[in-house]
């Protein structure tokens, strides 16, 4: 009988990522990316955002297709609830970014994942956005994410996986650190 290690496959092409890291370190101008979205008001608090192109690797790039996102407020805010709220999209972005990181780091470290589920919550008092209490901020008071991970690894290795995915996450960095934001009128 021959015993072969079944290769770990989380569907992440780690070789491509490592190759990109090496290539882009040598040509840092190609590492400059610009991400874009455009948003059109429909009515009330409902808007529709589309994402299709971005700039990177020294050229204009296109997604496989154009993605559309309906943004609205729920009925308890006297809105029509045509889509998720903007703050929920932030949670979606953070959870998606960290989950992608978990899969990539697991692949790199030779850890086979069977399932990864993240539950994410952002807490806020809406007194801030209603302008009812100047001491309450508009944004999240805090964000909590709970990962349930079934994998061929010890608890310590899984914790290290989740810690490393935070360290390399763009959205985690965006949410935890100040970012310069410029809003202009065309």
């Amino acid at each position, binding site marked *: 009988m021959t015993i072969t290690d079944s290769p770990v496959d989380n569907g992440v092409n780690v070789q491509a990522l490592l190759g990109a890291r090496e290539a882009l370190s040598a040509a*840092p101008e190609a590492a400059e990316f610009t991400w874009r979205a455009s948003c059109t008001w429909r009515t009330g608090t409902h808007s529709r955002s589309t994402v299709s192109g971005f700039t990177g690797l020294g050229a204009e790039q296109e997604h496989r297709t154009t993605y559309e996102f309906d943004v609205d407020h729920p009925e308890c805010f006297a809105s029509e609830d045509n889509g998720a709220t903007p703050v929920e999209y932030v949670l979606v972005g953070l959870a998606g970014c960290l989950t992608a990181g978990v899969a990539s780091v697991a692949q790199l470290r030779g850890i086979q994942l069977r399932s990864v589920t993240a539950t994410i919550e952002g807490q806020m008092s809406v007194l801030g956005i209603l302008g009812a209490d100047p001491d309450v901020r508009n944004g999240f008071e805090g964000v909590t994410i709970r990962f349930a991970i079934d994998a061929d690894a010890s608890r*310590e290795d899984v*914790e*290290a996986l989740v*810690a*490393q995915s*935070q*360290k390399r996450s763009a959205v*985690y*960095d965006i*949410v*935890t*650190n*100040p970012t310069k934001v410029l809003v202009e009128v065309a």
Partner: protein
Amino acid sequence: MMQTTAVVIGAGHAGLAMSRRLTERSIDHVVLERGEVANSWRTQRWPSLRLLTPNWQTRLPGYRYAGGDPDGFMPAAEVVATLSSYARYIGAPVRTATAVRTVRAVPQGFEIQADDHVLHARAVVLATGACNLPATPRVADAVPAPVTSLTPLTYRDPCQLPDGGVLVVGASATGVQLAAEIHRSERPVTLAVGEHVRLPRTYRGRDIFWWLEATGLLAERYDQIDDLTRARHLPSPQLTGTREATMTDLNSLTALGVRITGRLGRIADGVAQFSGSLPNTCALADLKMNRFLNRADQWATTSGLDDELPAPHRFAPTYVDPRTPLELNLTTGEITTVLWATGFRPDHSWLDIPVFDRAGHIRHDGGAVTGGPGLYVLGLPVLRTRASTYIHGAATDSQAVASHLHTHLSSGRR
């Protein structure tokens, strides 16, 4: 113009070790020193600073610590005395008070302009140190005017600071040592913590540097390290040269009353904003420390040392206060000083040869400068091994660099 085979720039531990190696090979050379031997240790280190490495580990070519306290840690003044007596002992041809202005490549070698004279050499070894300039982030420009900004290069002791609170930025060895010292002077300290390296001073009855050496970690070669850039830029471990405390980590600072915050992101309208990533930064440091302790325990077991050493144990995870502030107003008068313990960088501004990468670091292959045949560098973090960061690393690094330099000289003669 004076002619010599090799010029060593800098008479600190690395330059002196190199001088000794060149003498062993009968390679004619001079050591140019801007001030006195061990100049940085005389003029740019705060007096209470002690080496992170124990005395027994302070080894240089032909020198071993022979004093009465092998497990102690040298204060800055003793480092000066040790290096001065080492320079005399090896008969290093040091020219003091000779600052190098420029080094240029010329046919068959290098032209070195040092104050009022010019030297020509076939090989040059840069041993001017890794900590000549403070690596202060751009956010430092936004500190509001009445607040004093200070770097560890000009810090001497807490008495030079105005009364009031102090924001220490950076939690490497420098940051945690100065945070503790300043907080004890009744100037309440806030410590802004980014990525850091947590290690205990002692583990299972032995100094951590004993473990780092015994397990082979310090001997790991630069060309076998997965992420060399990261290894070369790792902050120094949160250690203090003292046997009085097992830990000088964030938990011990919290117990002392120091307020811990996340990494300083920016200062907007006089308000410092800190990262919300502190829990993960601490989790990563705890995980990394435990990975090394696991490695140490495995090594002890395979080396048959479990009977003579105390039993393995683990340290409490780093405590992060759920009320950790995300902002600190620097305009209220509560904070009177910001101390930038954000690292150091070498000063090679006088090197007029294009051997620098995009970030301004010298490109080199284990000390042999890339694109500069005959040019060498010593005394930088993880230059050839992880030990290169510490004084004793120069003992082996200088041997390898001298051997390369010797070959370079011989090939040039053909």
